[in-house]
Structure formats: C-alpha cells, structure tokens
C-alpha cells in the first residue's frame, strides 16, 4: 500500500475498513495505474463476488443471531473461515454444535492476525525484508484447507475444473478469471454429482 503511493493514515484506514485481500490486491495496481474510480469500484466488486456465494450459503445460520452480531459475523468471514465453516456444517450436520460461536472465534482470530500483519507491514514498510516466500505460506495455508474437502468424486471434479480454468484465465483483467474458475468448478461439480446420482440409481 505504501509502495502504491498511499500515505500511512490512508493505508491504515484502507486496511481497517476494506477487509478483503483480493479487493486490496485488485485496487492497488489500479490506483498506481491512475485508473478511474469507477473502474476500481467495478474491479473490486468483481473480485469479491464469491462473497455473495458465501453470504447465501451462511445466511440461514447467521439469521438466527441478533442483527448486529450477524452482520459482524458476516462481515468478518473470509475465504478460509467460510471454507472451514461450510465444510463442517455440511459434513457433521448433527455433531457440529455452537456453529456461529465457532465461526466468530475463527473470524476474530484471523482478523487479529490479518490486522497485526497489515499494521506491521504498513508501519515497517521501509525496513521489513520483502520475501515473497513468507506471503506464499499464506496461500499454502488456504490450500491445506481445500484438501480435506475433496471427499468424493464430484468435489475432485469441481477442484480440477476450477484449477484448470483458473490457470487458463489467469491473465484476464480485474481478476475476472477467478469468477470464471469458480463458475466452472461449481458447474462441473454439480454435473459430477448428477452423474454419480444417475449411476447409483
């Protein structure tokens, strides 16, 4: 953020109120490239469309909470927390008690680590070593979460399709490839589920 030309107060507010790594990653190069505000807003929206999917998937659970608590839980839920929560909810439907407390605990833990990292990075931008290997461990932490989700053929197909399309569309602008990959993964997963259902019946 500092390298993109934001002042320290701007970077701190950006980190605090735009709690989305992809929105930040998409917006910063566009700010550096002097893109118009409209383009940055559209790119930020497209990069975060998957949160609409998470919101739809979790709304049933969160609606039971008091309104402010449900909004806070929804706002703080990021990819990793949504992945773990939805996985547990669907796999252990009977045994997964205190669901929203579990989600909130994950959310606050991630928020604290995320904000600490960002604030340290913003304040120490000048003297911190910048090794891409450190940030890559974060990607691997997300990858680790996917592996237990691959529990049946439709999920393998979904993962394979999402991976292939993500690679093929990597160079698309505004992270549109991310959306294409998610759409492909979901479609192929559903097709696989239908095909396995037809085979077993």
């Amino acid at each position, binding site marked *: 953020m500092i390298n993109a030309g934001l002042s320290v107060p701007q970077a701190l507010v950006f980190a605090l109120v735009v709690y989305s790594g992809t929105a930040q990653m998409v917006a910063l190069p566009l700010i550096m490239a002097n893109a118009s505000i409209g383009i940055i*807003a559209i790119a*930020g929206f497209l990069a*975060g469309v998957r949160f609409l999917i998470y919101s*739809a998937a979790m709304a049933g659970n969160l609606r039971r909470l008091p309104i402010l608590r449900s909004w806070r839980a929804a706002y703080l839920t990021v990819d990793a927390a949504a992945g773990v929560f939805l996985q547990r909810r669907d796999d252990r439907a009977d045994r997964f008690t205190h669901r929203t407390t579990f989600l909130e605990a994950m959310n606050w833990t991630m928020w604290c680590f995320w904000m600490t990292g960002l604030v340290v990075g913003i304040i120490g931008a000048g003297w911190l070593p910048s090794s891409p290997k450190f940030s890559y461990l974060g990607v691997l932490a997300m990858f680790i979460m*996917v592996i237990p989700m691959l529990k049946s053929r439709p999920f393998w197909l*979904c993962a394979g399709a*999402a991976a292939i399309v993500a*690679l093929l569309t990597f160079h698309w602008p505004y992270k549109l490839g991310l959306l294409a990959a998610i759409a492909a993964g*979901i479609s192929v*997963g559903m097709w696989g589920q239908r095909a396995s259902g037809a085979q077993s019946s």
Partner: protein
Amino acid sequence: VTAQSIWVVIALLALIVLWQRLSFLLLPAQFRPRGALLRALSFAPVAALMAICIPEIFQGAMRAPDEPLAWVSDGRVLAAAVVFVAMRQGLNALWCLSLAAAVLWLF
C-alpha cells in the same frame, strides 16, 4: 490520483465489501437459497479456494511459458505437492506448513 480520490476509493470499496458480505442477510427470507442453488453452494468453497490458490502455486511456470517443464523444479510447486501428499497421509496442518516452509527454504 489525488489524496481525495484515494479516500473516495477506500470508502467505495468498504461499502462494496460490506454489501457483498451482508447481501443475503439483508434480503428478505424468500430469497433464501434452495434446490439447485443450495447444491451449487456446497461446491463454492472448494471452487473459490482452488481458483485463488492454483494460479499462485503455478505463478513461476506461468511467467516462463517458454520453459514448459520449469514448474517441476519450482519451489512453490514442490512445496504445494509436499503439502498435498502430507495432508492426504493424515499429517496435521501445522506439520504440513512446516514441511512446506522447509521445502521453500531449500529451493
């Protein structure tokens, strides 16, 4: 880009992120996902996480399209492969990440 327009961008992005995450909480109950949409949503986390992770894992290979086998010796790909095998073998996540860090340090 002026300082003022950066503040506008920050405010707009904050509103967009907020709306996206609260969207289905703010919509009336009849818009609750059901049927095919509900089934589709069960695939969403896998698809989204793969779509985010895979291009990062193969980033080195994609930046060198002239060397189609460069990814075989890429530390990022090797670390991801080690994580994958270790997780499938039942190792816990922390051990997997430690192994990955070791691979990244070596390559």
